[in-house]
């Protein structure tokens, strides 16, 4: 066998000009994805990016792998078909808060519960960018936008809570410009099953600084918790703050050494679904927002089970013969 060439991040770039606005958070994500693909030894020919519609969904055009830019909200359904028909392909689904949670909310829920082995990156910028700035399902209540001049009256969705409720087997969150993005993407790629990653992404044209609390170098460490499996929930620039479970099963912010000791804090457990859900409900400014892998458990993948059923059927009944098929049912001879 000939040695396959080692690919670098650059090798995953297509020859097309990138048409995102200058300064868009999508660039950082694109670069990280390319780096991660190189790092994990992905093959261009075996990698398929499937996207819906929206700014983020242009992603496949900028990759040198196979790519399918589909229709609004349906990327998970296309990806499911791809994986059913060829489980050997590495499939990434690129979606956004509008594409994945509004028009395509149904498909997102179902690909997660089926645990199809794909990596889903939901770029959450809390706004509709491509259609010029209308509020999205993750926009905060009261959001003023061209379609809500008096402020939106919708309650926003929390993407991670949705994913967990939809029985996702891998759930994580990160920030477009943060150093942990690469790490999380690597973990997502390694996970067998649907990996759901919410990425806080800055739309610097229509919703600039929507996630300033989590991205501003000077203040972010006080506003996010970096999750580490088996470690206590500690945060703060001085790592002096933590999260504890109160007597009435509510989360509370505490100061270590003053309110309690480190051992009294919640210890992160990536296999604990209830903890993951509680973490997903923590939102700024009441709480620091957890970043990293919330939840990671092993479960069967849809396409593996389906392939197994085909193999079992062949084993039990023999490989299907067209002759036998045509001669099945109520047959009779006319002489």
């Amino acid at each position, binding site marked *: 066998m000939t040695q396959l060439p080692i690919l670098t991040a650059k090798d995953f770039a*297509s020859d*097309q000009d990138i048409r995102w606005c200058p300064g868009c958070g999508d660039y950082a994500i694109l670069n990280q994805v390319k780096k991660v693909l190189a790092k994990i030894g992905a093959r*261009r*020919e*075996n990698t*398929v990016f*499937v996207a819906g*519609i929206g700014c983020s969904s242009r992603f*496949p*055009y900028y*990759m*040198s*792998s*196979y*790519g*399918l*830019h*589909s*229709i609004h909200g*349906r990327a*998970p*359904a*296309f*990806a*499911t*078909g*791809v*994986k*059913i*028909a*060829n489980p*050997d*392909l590495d499939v990434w689904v690129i979606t956004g808060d509008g594409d994945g949670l509004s028009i395509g909310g*149904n*498909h997102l*829920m*179902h690909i997660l519960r089926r645990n199809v082995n794909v990596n889903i990156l939901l770029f959450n910028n809390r706004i509709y960018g491509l259609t010029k700035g209308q509020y999205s399902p993750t926009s905060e209540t009261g959001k003023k936008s061209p379609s809500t001049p008096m402020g939106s009256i919708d309650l926003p969705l929390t993407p991670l809570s949705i994913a967990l409720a939809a029985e996702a087997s891998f759930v994580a969150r990160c920030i477009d410009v943060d150093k942990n993005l690469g790490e999380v993407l690597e973990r997502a790629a390694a996970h067998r099953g649907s990996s759901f990653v919410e990425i806080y992404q800055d739309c610097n044209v229509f919703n600039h600084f929507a996630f300033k609390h989590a991205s501003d170098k000077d203040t972010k460490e006080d506003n996010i918790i970096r999750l580490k499996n088996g470690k206590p929930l500690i945060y703060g620039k001085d790592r002096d703050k933590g999260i504890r479970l109160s007597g009435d099963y509510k989360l509370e912010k505490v100061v270590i050494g003053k309110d309690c000791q480190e051992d009294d804090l919640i210890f992160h457990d990536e296999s604990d679904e209830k903890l993951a859900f509680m973490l997903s409900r923590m939102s700024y400014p009441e709480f620091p927002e957890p970043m990293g892998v919330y939840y990671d458990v092993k479960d069967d993948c849809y396409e593996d089970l*389906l392939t197994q*059923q*085909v193999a*079992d*059927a*062949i084993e*039990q*009944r*023999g*490989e*299907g013969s*067209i002759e036998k*098929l*045509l*001669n*099945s*049912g*109520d*047959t*009779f*001879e*006319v*002489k």
Partner: protein
Amino acid sequence: MGTGTKQEAGVKPTSEIKSAVVRFAGDSGDGMQLAGAQFTSTSAVIGNDIATLPDYPAEIRAPVGTVAGVSGFQINFSSESIYTPGDKVNALIAMNPAAFKAHIDDVDVGGIVLVNESEFGKMNLKKAGYPEGYNPLDDEEMNQRFQLFKVPISRLNTEALAESGLGNKDVNRCKNMYALGMVYWLYDRPLDTTINQIDSYFGKKKKMPEVAAANIAALKSGFYFGETAELFPVQYHVAKAAIKPGKYRKITGNEAVAMGLVTAAKLAGKDVCYCSYPITPASNVLHALAGMRNFGVKTFQAEDEIAAVCAAIGASYTGQLGVTGTSGPGLALKSEAIGLAVMTEMPLVVVNVQRGGPATGLPTKTEQSDLLQAMYGRNGECPVVIIAAQSPGDCFDSAIEASRIAMQHRVPVILMTDGYLGNGSEPWPIPDHTKFEKIKVEHATDPETYQPYARDENLVRPWALPGTPGLEHRIGGLEKQHITGNVNYEPDNHQLMVEVRQKKIDRLAKLIPEIEPYGDPEGELLVLGWGGTYGSIYTAVGNARKEGKKVSGLHLRHINPMPTNLGEVLKRFKRVLIPELNLGQLRMLIRGKYLADARGLNKVQGRPFLVEEIEQAIDLMLQGKYGDREYLRPHNGLVRVEDQDYDFTSIDGRSQS
């Protein structure tokens, strides 16, 4: 149709008839579909030609005893070739008053009406909507008009199964077999096919030997009752049809579609990926394919119609035969994704088992009203190939043809069937699988020459599969540059690409067979049809020709593109009649494309055409009585020019004139 009665000492006389139309009708829980299916199997096995029409309610269990809950199954069986489930019913089996009420108008004068008298109590008569104090069984007019046989089937069945050891409920569920046994005797049919099937289903598969025994006992008791009771004056006999020797099977359109898809995939060296969302009347295509996993078939019950078509496109993208199946409302939901398949030039088969519309419409009834939706129901200039099957068995060939074109030409193909074809059945000569032509499908492999949107002589772009090194490329819904496939918004390129997608479909016409009418190649009248109306039109044209009328018929399988010589064929006839189960959708296409003054016979009553309806329209066309009317409609089996105007303000819409 009787051809003679013979009388022997000690046995009831047997009357030899050519054909009969029998309809089983009862509450939807009465097992009428099962009784009908059994009667069909038996008739097929003994060599009659058959055609069937199941007619069931949209509700699984509408209120018991009501007209809304009546389920019917009609079978036409004959010693001659037949193409329709029959116009008038020769024998109706009515298991309750509601079934009697719903179907009595379809029974031929002098026809047999066998009723389950046990169910004609006060309550059931009321549920059926009969006025208090009225029982149609006592109605003199009914007794004069029909041969009314009143048999307490429920009671006799219960008595026959007294020793069965089953509870009342289970015993009562055998009454369909009791009724079936009586009808078997009436038409001189053997019991063994049904006994074997009961045995293998309840006895072997379900491991309920006592239920099997009870059903068989009920069947036999009904048969013996027919034989010994002095009820029916004659027993009828329908001889074997002179159909071509060979091996046959009973097939429904939905079964045939499933088998055709699997066969096509095998002929192309591929697997079927059938992605669908349950919808009446298409669901049993999904069921059939789900049972064929050992053929490599992968079925995916998606979360909705849209996901189903998208997953099918995803499967095609990786090189398998991606198929989605649905009915009208589902086709509407799939339209955007079908547009993507047109744009990305991806193989895709969409099976549309049409039903009555619009919206939810008549979910369990047949109609042909999705033709224009299939043609035009998408945004943009978005042509697809359309193929229509014309009989249950023909669904097999049509499914292979649809798959072949989709895979070889990288286009979505909509295969149009309908509820009547999907659930109707006929004897199907089992084809010799060794004679099937391989479906040659090529995939791009050479990175040196590969261009995603380069084209061959049929304007087909290469099918490059993910996993192939060096052919990585991006496709999607945005307009693509000719040859390179890069996103492109240039005005001239868009014009070129829109036209190339259209031309690709148009050029296909050269690769499909030319079409010739049956009957004479030219004449006074051409009756043009498409899809499931074939049997009725073919029979009506044949009958008219026997009477010396200068009528020919033509039935379209390829609707988009149409055969290249269709325009020329149309010109050979003075008049063109297009019967359709819609308000004139093919007529509009034919008028638009060929400037032909085609007239319609248009029926949207949830039921197939009666042969006599088409015969009447043929006569009116030949007599020039259509005048300025673009179409006529039948009412109660009659097509009358003077009966065409609706009074939309009156309760039944019939004009008072």
